[in-house]
């Protein structure tokens, strides 16, 4: 059994597991942090940005962290754990000869589709007249600043996929429900489990009759909107692959939410606007729910909230129809019947309005001061670029970062100098080191595999030895492009005996061979397979009477062996 690690990003994993001749890809996250090295894609022509010396702004190229470690067409299945971890799917399933199946839950598929649609839309609505490629030459790249200089294989970076690719990729998705047992080729069984991180997010169990691998990716123990994490099913794993821990191990999500609300209220009261760069699904639901309770108390009832994204409406609508995937509290609301999320009421009372983009209705209905939720959190593309240009010059306004995926200082760099206030409240509900060590103590896997980043304290806080995994035996670290042999010794396999085809051997005592043949106590018996099965009851177990009889006969050694010429019908690997 081998694990090929295609991504070094701990929260956007992409690993391939080879197990019993099946090749299983675990997630395919798209690392977009490289966009921070590029200039934003403005919606309207910006004289300031275009006058900046240096280079041409980014051309929609996205870094694809895939190396030719293995042939993508040999992948049998792809298991998706949550919608953030599937953004690279079209790169893998399209134009690569991939013929397998993708497994994901329904919310993961639907919201994943929305996020991809949004990304494609962001890229396509600002077509670039020319795209820069010269910088990719080795000689030029060498001269570039910062991380770009050291980026590997920039020539393999690909352009953003098209909507056609997205549709084709998603048509390969087969929907699964939590705890559904999916058989792969009769060799392996995979099962998604609730991971508590986002709508439909799942951890996966990959097991045969004797081996069990758990894949834990982006899990949360906090009570937000999704169904709570299923921990007990992770027990007794031989190997546990651990990815997607919190990126903000020192920030407490509840505290951050408090900061978020108070900063928002302060700015509005002072007459400023609040900009919240965020993804169109996920934490935004919790932010809106928190604001729903907060605005009444804080007397912000008249402040308009805007949610601008090509998929804003869909995201808000979809969140309401996945009752089965929500926490108990929200589920019971549906029984009343009421919408599970309070943003339905915010929309009904006109406190929250959503628009596909800043063009169209929004420009005429827009009132200040207001709160705007919009993407993309990297501040490099999407409607947020426009608001940065619009509000950046006034110190009354505030930008509040809630997504932890991008460094906010890097994100702001091209907009400097900035008069606007910046508040950093990253909300990352994924497991922290304390929670994960408690979890591992409980489920007790034999071996843990994790990204190497988790085996040492973060570089900026090298003295914090609590911000790393300390386990016995120590976890097996992986980095991008490593290939790990997992410590497995397969010794047993499960087969099914068909009683009908078994030959009838005779009971030994029926053969008149005399006592001399067996000088030992005759604890070995030959039974016809049919009789033996009768002896077992329908649970394929001993009947109690049978066990008792055997015990009486031979109190010390109650092992009963059935020796026989055995015809076993078997097939498989």
């Amino acid at each position, binding site marked *: 059994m081998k694990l090929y690690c295609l991504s070094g990003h701990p929260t956007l994993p992409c690993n391939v597991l080879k197990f019993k001749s099946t090749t299983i890809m675990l997630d395919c996250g798209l690392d977009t942090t490289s966009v921070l090295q590029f200039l934003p894609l403005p919606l309207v022509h910006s004289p300031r940005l275009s006058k900046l010396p240096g280079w041409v702004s980014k051309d929609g190229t996205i870094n694809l962290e895939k190396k030719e470690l293995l042939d993508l067409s040999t992948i049998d299945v792809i298991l998706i754990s949550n919608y953030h971890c599937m953004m690279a799917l079209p790169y893998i399933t399209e134009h690569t000869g991939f013929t397998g199946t993708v497994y994901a839950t329904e919310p993961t598929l639907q919201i994943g589709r929305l996020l991809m649609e949004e990304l494609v839309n962001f890229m396509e609505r600002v077509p670039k007249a020319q795209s820069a490629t010269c910088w990719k030459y080795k000689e030029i790249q060498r001269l570039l600043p910062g991380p770009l200089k050291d980026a590997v294989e920039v020539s393999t970076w690909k352009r953003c996929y098209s909507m056609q690719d997205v549709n084709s990729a998603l048509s390969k998705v087969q929907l699964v429900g939590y705890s*559904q047992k999916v058989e792969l080729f009769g060799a392996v069984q995979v099962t998604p489990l609730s991971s508590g991180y986002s709508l439909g997010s799942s951890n996966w169990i990959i097991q045969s009759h004797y081996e069990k691998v758990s894949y834990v990716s982006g899990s949360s123990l906090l009570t937000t909107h999704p169904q709570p994490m299923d921990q007990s099913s992770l027990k007794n794993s031989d190997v546990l692959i651990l990815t997607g821990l919190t990126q903000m191990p020192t920030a407490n999500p509840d505290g951050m939410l408090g900061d978020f609300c108070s900063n928002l209220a302060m700015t509005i009261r002072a007459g400023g606007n609040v900009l919240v760069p965020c993804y169109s699904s996920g934490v935004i639901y919790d932010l809106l729910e928190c604001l729903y309770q907060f605005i009444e108390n804080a007397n912000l009832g008249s402040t308009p909230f805007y949610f601008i994204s090509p998929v804003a409406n869909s995201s808000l609508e979809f969140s*309401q129809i996945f009752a*089965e995937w929500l926490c108990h509290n929200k589920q019971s609301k549906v029984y009343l019947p009421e919408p599970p999320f309070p943003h339905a009421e915010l929309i009904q009372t006109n406190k929250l309005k959503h628009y596909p983009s800043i063009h169209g209705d929004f420009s005429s209905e827009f009132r200040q001061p207001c709160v705007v939720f919009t993407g993309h959190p990297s501040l490099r593309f999407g409607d947020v670029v426009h608001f940065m240009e619009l509000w950046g010059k006034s110190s009354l306004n505030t930008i509040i970062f809630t997504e932890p995926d991008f460094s906010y200082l890097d994100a702001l760099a091209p907009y400097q100098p900035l008069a606007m206030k910046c508040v950093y409240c990253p909300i990352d509900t994924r497991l922290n080191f304390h929670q994960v060590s408690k979890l591992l103590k409980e489920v007790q896997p034999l071996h843990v595999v994790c990204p190497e980043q988790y085996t040492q304290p973060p570089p900026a806080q090298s003295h914090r030895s609590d911000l790393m995994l300390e386990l016995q035996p120590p976890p097996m670290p992986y980095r991008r492009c490593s290939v790990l042999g997992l410590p497995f010794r397969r010794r047993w*396999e499960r087969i099914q005996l068909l009683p009908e085809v078994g030959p009838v051997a005779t009971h030994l005592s029926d053969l008149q061979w005399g006592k001399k043949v067996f000088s*030992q106590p005759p604890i070995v018996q030959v039974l016809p397979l049919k009789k033996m099965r009768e002896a077992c009851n*329908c649970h394929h177990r*001993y009947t109690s009477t049978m066990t008792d009889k055997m015990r009486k006969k031979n109190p010390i050694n109650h092992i009963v062996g059935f020796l026989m010429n*055995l015809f076993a019908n078997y097939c498989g690997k």
Partner: protein
Amino acid sequence: MPEIKVTPLGAGQDVGRSCILVSIGGKNIMLDCGMHMGFNDDRRFPDFSYITQQGRLTEFLDCVIISHFHLDHCGALPYMSEMVGYDGPIYMTHPTKAICPILLEDFRKITVDKKGETNFFTSQMIKDCMKKVVPLNLHQTVQVDDELEIKAYYAGHVLGAAMVQIKVGSESVVYTGDYNMTPDRHLGAAWIDKCRPDILISESTYATTIRDSKRCRERDFLKKVHETVERGGKVLIPVFALGRAQELCILLETFWERMNMKAPIYFSTGLTEKANHYYKLFITWTNQKIRKTFVQRNMFEFKHIKAFDRSYADNPGPMVVFATPGMLHAGQSLQIFKKWAGNEKNMIIMPGYCVQGTIGHKILNGQKKLEMENRQTLEVKLQVEYMSFSAHADAKGIMQLIRMAEPRNMLLVHGEAKKMEFLKDKIEQEFTINCFMPANGETTTVITNPSVPVDISLNLLKREMALGGPLPDPKKPRTMHGTLIMKDNSLRLVSPEQALKELGLNEHQLRFTCRVQYRKTEFTIFIVLFDLLLKKCYTIQHLPDGTVMVESIVIKVSSSAEEPNTKVLLLSWSYQDEDLGSFLSTLLKKGLPSGLSSM
């Protein structure tokens, strides 16, 4: 032998009060717990005394599964759990869990508040009963206990309807509840994988009907409504608040929009709005088209359909009214019917099945005079139309499901005996499987033949595979040699050597030996011929000490001390070579054919 027992307490050769007991692998499961619309006495509920004469049912049942929210499938649930007594888990899907208590409360109100019955379950009992419900998601494998697992499949029929697979070890039963094999305007078609259950328990409401295409029926329906409204008549459509009602509403709504019609459409009872809300929230359970477009336009927000008030029934002019309940056995639909029955301009359209004993059933059978309470008679002058919109599988659909699931046995419930008989013959003919149709209280026993799961040592498997070429052919069974060890609760298949080692046994060699005597002359000729004969079929080795090996059978030649003219052949073979050994020994003993020996 292991067996599965199925006993219907209700819905055995009947429609109504569905309740089926299944015993499988030592587990007892109750499938559905419904009430009968046609009765107002004890026969209304299934006879739970079959399970136990006294005391609670908890210790006799491992779980209860409800397939969907129709009262003939869940109406007796509070009675069973709270009045007879059952504290174990009750499984149903989320939409069923949401809607079922509302219908139960409605049912309770009609029976207790309107008809004044006592000794009936209370609102509190419904609430307590619902606390025992465990929600079930589609395709999720729910482990009821260590051995019993259940899995739900989409069944169409109504919002949240499910088929369930019940599995213990390698034995399984699938119960369909009510299902629909053709997608309609708001729901999808039932689907199940090739799970090859030991028994498929299927409803058979429309066992003999093969219904024409849905489009025709819809056109027919719209034409009739249109004509009646045009001539100023009133149309009454008795429906259940959830299910068909929504489908017909979508149908009329689009028709009204297209034809620019003005006549009002009403929907009775406060349930409607609530019901439509459920459809909006459980949109994932509707069909593909609605699911895809719900963000742009939610099909369950109706513009033309308004809430009904009791006083509207006397309004002049045409109107269309959807009223509950669907079989005209009580409530608002019955009240409106009484008011409108006398006018031949009006029309009543029954869009679904009516249980025997209900007024709906009577008028569908052409009865023109109805006896009402207080010895009054009611003359039926209005036009009565029956249009099967209820989403049950027809004969074609049932056969289709059998093809999908490939069951080993078939069991029909939820249908009329005569029709079942017909379908039973058809199934037995086409699929050559047994088909049962037990009556209520009658037990069907099916003997199963589960395979025995055995753990095989990987070493042995690899060794045996290496013997038979590079790749095993799954279509060809092959012989393998191993030892089965039964220890504690496991069966393991290991190589004989390992088994002996584990059991601390010495290997015993069984050898058969025999002696054959010949005269010297005879012997020489014989041995040459023998050699010639056998060379064709077997490998023969001559060892330096004069021993001959035919495969692994040892043949030794020695001269007898007493009789110098004779030679003695000693044969020896092990138990494993018994076949060849005994063949050779008989051949040698028979001696030479007489013709040869005289030479």
